[in-house]
């Protein structure tokens, strides 16, 4: 069976969930071969093998952490040369998309970004994308070269599928440009203890209606009762009530959770662009005319300061 390269997104050896999802999709189009780079690369092997990686190619050179993007492109190019895969799959993070695009250019291939599903087709993998603020669904494929495709988080279920996961050292020769952009310092994002926004199965968001940074604890309490991530609309972020890293929308993060709960969010097109592919959408807003209600599976027209605490209490009570 043809091999499919899967680029591994990990933090010091801890594999991030979108990569495990990619392994599920990769098995639909071939046999997954994972490529793990940088500090802790070898530590990823057990998790990758458990989820279907037949082989794990690793290289832990310091260049991957010390310089931006290009060393990783060099490594993937080396892996493509070594494996001759049927496709290369990369998680759709901002960095993942840059890596994928540069790799595709070098390979003389096309690149598809932000796929939400992937299936085998007669002429190669077919990627489903959601475009124009999720008002259209397209199916596309790469028509030249080795398909390079980035896939959004939550596009597939994580499935255990034990495979050999044999670890092999990947031999990489860095290009002249590899050391062009130096990373002079790195500050890890402070953990909130909540799931990462783009990976979370449930996202609870607050907008203009939350009316102040101090009131966001209401949103956080609801999120915590559900084990959810916290999101914010651009209005709430621009007002300084919540960090930009939590912004959902066109200029923030695009999320596609099982459940999205919008609180005090009107639902401007820019926000909808970032959440419209959520499986179930719920909203609480006192304005019955808010456009968000056009999208919802369930909506409550009411004051979020009344509804949200009651909802949180009821969830806690039901969970016992």
């Amino acid at each position, binding site marked *: 069976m043809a091999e499919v390269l899967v680029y591994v997104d990990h933090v010091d050896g801890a594999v991030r969930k979108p990569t495990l999802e990619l392994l599920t999709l990769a098995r639909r189009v071939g046999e997954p071969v994972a490529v793990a780079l940088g500090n802790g690369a070898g530590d990823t092997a057990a998790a990758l093998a458990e989820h279907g990686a037949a082989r794990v190619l690793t290289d832990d050179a310091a260049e991957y952490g010390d310089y931006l993007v290009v060393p990783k*492109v060099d490594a993937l190019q080396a892996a493509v040369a070594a494996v001759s895969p049927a496709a290369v799959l990369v998680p759709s993070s901002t960095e993942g998309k840059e890596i994928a*695009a540069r790799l595709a250019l070098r390979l003389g291939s*096309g690149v598809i970004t932000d796929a939400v599903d992937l299936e085998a087709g007669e002429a190669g993998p077919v990627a489903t994308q959601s475009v*124009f603020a999720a008002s259209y669904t397209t199916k596309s494929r790469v028509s030249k070269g080795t398909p390079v495709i980035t896939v959004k988080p939550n596009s597939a279920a994580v499935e255990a599928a034990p495979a050999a996961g044999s670890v092999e050292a990947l031999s990489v020769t860095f290009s002249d440009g590899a050391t062009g952009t130096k990373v002079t*310092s790195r500050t890890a994002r402070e953990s909130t203890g909540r799931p990462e926004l783009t990976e979370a199965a449930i996202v609870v968001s607050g907008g203009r209606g939350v009316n102040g940074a101090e009131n966001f604890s209401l949103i956080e309490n609801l999120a915590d009762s*559900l084990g959810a991530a916290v999101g914010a609309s651009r209005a709430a972020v621009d007002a300084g009530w919540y960090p*930009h890293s939590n912004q959902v929308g066109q200029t923030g993060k695009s999320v596609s959770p099982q459940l999205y709960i919008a609180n005090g969010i009107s639902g401007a097109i820019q926000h909808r662009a970032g959440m419209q592919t959520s499986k179930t959408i719920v909203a609480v807003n006192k304005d*019955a005319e808010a456009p968000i209600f056009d999208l919802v599976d*369930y909506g409550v027209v009411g004051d979020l300061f009344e509804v949200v605490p009651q*909802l949180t209490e009821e969830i806690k009570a039901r969970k016992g």
Partner: protein
Amino acid sequence: MSLRIVVTVKYVPDATGDRHFAEDLTVDRDDVDGLLSELDEYAVEQALQIAENADDAEVTVLTVGPEDAKDALRKALSMGADKGIHVEDDDLHGTDAIGTSLVLAKAVEKAGYDLVVSGMASTDGTMGVVPALVAERLGVPQVTLLSEVSVEDGVVTGRRDGDTASEQLQASLPAVVSVTDQSGEARYPSFKGIMAAKKKPVESWDLSDLGIEAEEVGLEGAYTVVESAAERPARTAGTIVKDEGEGGKQLAAFLAERKFI
């Protein structure tokens, strides 16, 4: 020595309009009004600030697109850019990201540059890969997705906020930079700026000016094929209740029924 800054901008369909595909599955640009991509306004702003902090700098704004794309250039010129370059050619219709990066890289080289500044992504395609592709083609460092940027003594530095960490980056010029919407509010064109923009030079180039063959771009040159595009069915109307004191409990019941609790 003068610092030559080229800002790449895109003329995009207005996101608040109803966007559609044309029969050839390219974006239907006749159907909806266009404008300068909002995310590119941040690039123009940062380029102007970098220029203002340099001894001697020139800001050129570059766009690739149909006749109407000149509107995007005019907006950037009215904000304060010095001159414009418009790459227009019928053969460009249907060009994908890989092809766009070819046109931009050739045009940037022809214009002459020390620094290329782009927005983080277009508001229509939203791929966010063109700056990285242009850097790859030009063989210069990419310093992308910056929420803060500055240039001093031929070195660009900036902050990149990723999913798991925030990084400080540094590269020597020439380089390609892209900036996020966190980099700083874009200025409004003044009346004076709008009047001045009318007199600023805009050059028009076609593919032959850039030494690009028609088959390298357009639908024919694209590396990807859209096989189908279907309008997403409108969501069926959900249940909307008015809170009469039990709204939170009713919502909890709905979530329990859907097995979220």
